[in-house]
């Protein structure tokens, strides 16, 4: 009878971060397989993808252009006077980056996790849970980036881009997508049924409406300003608006840091939760 060396069957708890982070950094290639899978599926349903362009455009036309006629001008982040349309457009871009990421990371992922059981098959291959989390988030980001690019182009055509800083809007849109996709996926891993998704709506709608999206932060009384500044979409909106109007200060780094931390934390929770759910 043969013998084997002593094995600890579970890695000690303290190594969790070590287990999540290195594969997250090294796992690019395997995570790409999930993107490849989604491309195969969406190749046939590209129309679904194309429809994603329209929502933010409709908002821009109705609120930005329509309401902009009534409002006229507002004070921008740098104190300069800008058209209401130019004020709202960057916020709509940031919001649509959030909405797209959340939609992909919640509804689509829940369907794949609970009903299509895509990951049960995937995990029997060398692809691991962190690869799955990264791959699905990447997919959401790729989609989101295309939408943001088109939106930015429309903004440029309408003369709503006020600075060369706007070139950085795309990477920032990716960062916003990353933060919300990661947290959205983490939240999805706790959901038991479609009913739980009402909570997603409950969280996303106020973020969309109150993150200084449609009027400057200073409209709020000071106490409320603090609360708004603690919420995530506010940082996305403020960052994109600053870049678009050219009023970029060191505060931009705070926004970037907030969103990056949110994304990394969401990713870590997601890989851990997927492990709990699928590798039992």
């Amino acid at each position, binding site marked *: 009878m*043969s013998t084997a060396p002593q094995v600890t*069957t579970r*890695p000690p708890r303290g190594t969790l971060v070590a287990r999540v982070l290195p594969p997250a950094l090294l796992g690019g290639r395997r995570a790409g*397989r999930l993107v490849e899978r989604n491309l195969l*599926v969406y190749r046939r349903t590209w129309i679904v993808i194309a429809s994603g362009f329209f929502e933010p455009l409709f908002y821009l036309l109705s609120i930005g252009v329509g309401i902009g006629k009534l409002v006229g001008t507002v004070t921008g982040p740098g104190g300069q006077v800008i058209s209401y349309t130019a004020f709202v457009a960057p916020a709509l871009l940031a919001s649509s980056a959030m909405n797209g990421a959340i939609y992909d990371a919640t509804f689509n992922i829940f369907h794949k996790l609970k009903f*299509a059981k895509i990951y049960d098959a995937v995990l*029997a*291959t060398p692809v691991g849970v962190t690869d799955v989390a990264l791959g699905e988030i990447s997919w959401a980001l790729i989609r989101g980036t295309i939408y943001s690019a088109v939106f930015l182009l429309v903004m440029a055509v309408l003369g709503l881009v006020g600075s060369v800083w706007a070139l950085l809007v795309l990477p920032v849109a990716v960062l916003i997508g990353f933060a919300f996709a990661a947290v959205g996926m983490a939240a999805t891993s706790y959901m038991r049924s479609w009913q739980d998704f009402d909570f997603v709506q409950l969280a996303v709608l106020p973020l969309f409406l109150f993150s200084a999206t449609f009027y400057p932060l200073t409209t709020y009384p000071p106490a409320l300003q603090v609360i708004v500044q603690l919420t995530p979409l506010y940082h996305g909106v403020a960052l994109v608006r600053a870049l678009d109007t050219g009023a970029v200060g060191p505060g931009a780094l705070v926004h970037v840091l907030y969103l990056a931390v949110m994304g990394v934390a969401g990713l870590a929770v997601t890989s851990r939760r997927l492990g709990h759910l699928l590798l039992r």
Partner: protein
Amino acid sequence: MPSDPAEPLIWARGLCKRFGDLVAVDGIDFEVGRGEAFGFLGPNGAGKSSAMRMVACLSPLSGGSLRILGLDPARDGVRIRSRLGLVPQDDTLDLELTVRENLYIYGRYFDLPRKVIRERADQLLAFAQLTERADDKVEPLSGGMKRRLTIARALINEPELLLLDEPTTGLDPQARHLLWDRLWRLKQQGVTLVLTTHYMDEAEQLCDRLVVMDKGRIAAEGTPRQLIEQWSTKEVLELRFGPGEHEALAAKLGGLAERIEVLPDRLLLYVEDGDEALAGTHRRGLRPDSALVRRSTLEDVFLRLTGRRLVD
């Protein structure tokens, strides 16, 4: 560390799996050698799938030690899985993709180059007799076709070790025989097979060696022949009487057999000589509605060990 051919492909000691308070696998020991076909036979809930999932590196151990291909699943899961093929109990095909795309993307999960996958996919489609359905969606395929596709998919990385959890459950007899033939061919090619089953004919046909599992434990181990010799008699006399009479009549047959099993629809008498026992039955004035003498099978071993039948 390259694995030594003589080393067991799977080596398990005191393997445990708990789900909360429930003990699904309760400290089992087993080894599977290269090229072997090894079976887990057991009733529902015996812990077969739980054991299988640990071997597939899909489920962390709750206790004990496990080595697969000489590697530790907790540390080397990725390396092990890249050399393994898994046919899970429930098909996990990608319903949004076609038959061929299922093979393709699965190959990509194994990091195989596109060209290699394309070649293998054609061979595997032929192997699974699905060439005509290659470009159809998976959803409308019949159960047997889906099962064959799941098996073909598990072979895309040319695994050294193929794990099959109830490969033929739910298939019609023809589809089962086709699958057995396919599995037999793989075995001839040197692929190590580990399978779970409820079917004793499947176990007898395919397995060089098997364990009978019950309530998370291994009740017996050996080749099909060894198990029959050790746990059953040479022949079995099956007697059927009117409904409800079996319990009472069993008492009247005392001494005729080494052991008597009372089933709802018949009595099983475990004997060396079935005809002799039947004559004895008649001498005691009993007139069964029907009588059959047959050789012992794994089903009898199973009944003896677990008190249950394999398939209800």
